[in-house]
């Protein structure tokens, strides 16, 4: 039982990373029906932006809390800048084009960003990431179940991100404009909504949350890698589809579910199919099952429908 609870906690932690990144997929999809496969790279850039801020911009001896805040802002700045440029120059010219065109463009942008970072840091990858929150600081959750500090931060960030985002979309002026744009972009424009700006806003919000995830990922594992966005991106996309792509709560739910399934399968699957090597396979089995039996995902609506 203790083992089970511990694994449940581990699954939730893994799922929090997926969920934060999935929010970006789901929001952009909800508004422009684009699956932005380069979003995983936005997550990766968030990690590298934070690392760059720490190694290049911060004087040594900066207090930890201040350093973390500045690293988060640095990571966000990099992620958001990349997302805005990508939207403006790669996706906007293709608006109204057949869906396959922006999809292939997204794959191209994804590879471009990976190689860009790899060339920027040619020496060694993965790069070490400062362990500002000590990973051996364990918090006891009772019954011998523990979670370390960086992981706890990740989970809190995911939950806060989801609640903040869905409140924002449901009840703010810009959020309502996002819903309106998702439901009927032409009419939204006739209501005085600058839909281009709303689309950029969706990219910016998604990139900010991905940067949070990129930073917390670095803190958890102590490394960042130019390729880390690829798998996390696909997993987060899976999470978004699981929850019902376009649905904000669904993205986080899908993230947690996927994380838990992967961890549990690693532990409890019958012998030749268990262990870390099979975690990804199990994750995608879940995706396939959901697509077969509930193609619209578990919660099934679009952002449009009810944030």
């Amino acid at each position, binding site marked *: 039982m203790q083992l089970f609870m511990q694994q449940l906690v581990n699954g939730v932690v893994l799922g929090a990373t997926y969920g934060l990144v999935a929010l970006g997929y789901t929001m952009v999809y909800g508004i422009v029906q684009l699956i932005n496969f380069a979003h995983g790279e936005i997550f990766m850039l968030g990690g590298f932006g934070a690392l760059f801020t720490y190694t290049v911009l911060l004087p040594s001896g900066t207090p930890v809390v201040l350093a973390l805040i500045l690293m988060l802002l640095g990571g966000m700045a990099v992620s958001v800048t990349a997302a805005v440029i990508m939207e403006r120059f790669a996706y906007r010219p293709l608006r109204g084009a057949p869906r396959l065109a922006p999809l292939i463009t997204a794959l191209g942008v994804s590879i471009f960003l990976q190689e860009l970072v790899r060339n920027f840091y040619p020496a060694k990858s993965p790069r070490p990431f400062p362990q500002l929150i000590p990973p051996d600081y364990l918090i006891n959750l009772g019954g011998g179940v523990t979670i370390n500090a960086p992981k706890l931060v990740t989970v809190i960030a995911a939950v806060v991100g989801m609640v*903040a985002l869905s409140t*924002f979309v449901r*009840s*703010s*002026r*810009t*959020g*309502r*404009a996002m*819903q*309106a744009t998702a*439901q*009927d972009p*032409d*009419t*939204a*424009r*006739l*209501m*005085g*909504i*600058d*839909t281009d700006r709303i689309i950029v*806003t969706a990219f910016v*919000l998604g990139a900010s949350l991905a940067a949070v995830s990129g930073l917390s990922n670095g803190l958890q594992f102590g490394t960042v890698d130019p390729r880390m966005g690829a798998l996390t991106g696909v997993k987060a996309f899976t999470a978004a589809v699981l929850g019902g792509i376009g649905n904000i709560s669904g993205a986080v739910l899908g993230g947690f579910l996927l994380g838990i399934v992967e961890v549990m399968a690693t532990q409890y699957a019958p012998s030749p199919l268990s262990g870390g090597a099979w975690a990804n396979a199990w994750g995608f089995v879940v995706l396939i099952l959901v697509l077969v039996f509930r193609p619209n995902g578990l919660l099934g609506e679009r952002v*449009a*429908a*009810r944030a």
Partner: protein
Amino acid sequence: MTVLEATSVTKRFGGLVAVNDVSLTVSEGEVVGLIGPNGAGKTTFFNCLTGMETPTSGRVTFRGTPLRGRPDLILKAGVARTFQNIRLFPNMTAVENVIVGRHARTSAGVLSAIGRGPRYRREERESEEVARDLLAFVGLGHVRNELAKSLPYGDQRRLEIARALATEPGLLLLDEPTAGMNPNETAAAVSLVKKIQGRGIAVVLIEHDMRFVFGLCDRVAVLVQGEKLLEGTPAEVQSDERVIAAYLGKPPEDAGPKEKKK
């Protein structure tokens, strides 16, 4: 004072001239009817006025300022519209639909909303009040929190009008406001348009219900095959032979069977 001045507006789609050299002037607080057989280019003309289509040639000014291009900017200038086929945001409530109409008249940005700043809170409160008042104005106060898609057809039309009014227009374009309405609903629509006029808002309406048009409008313009056939008071238009011919077809010179064109 002139609210809208459209001068020689022409819209071509390839070889088809949908709107040909149409001019229309609307004064402050006036109700103008735009009638004509199906396919005459009435809705295309509306689209040219609201920026949904860019006119091939011609000029549109609103209170003396030229209107060009983007629908969101034209709305901001003060031209709002409703649609022939209702285009509400189906999964929002009635009141939310109207609040979206406030978008151009509010300005709190993302940061202000996240921080719940004082300006954000004031604007939100004002928008909600305006939306409630407008719903009451069009007679939908009781269905405020229903989803737009679950409202009956007539209510949806009125909700579209409330949403358009929320943008604080100087000119309101109504595209077939009584389509699909029963006589009671049509009568209510007449008094609603009069109330809108009473607020000092000019109205241009496309309509096929002639009793509605002639009973309500100060002036009527007739569009036939993309061109303006004539314009005048309801009495003038009603008695013009060309209008009757446009709707029903001319009796042929020789004694053949009458062809109905409508």
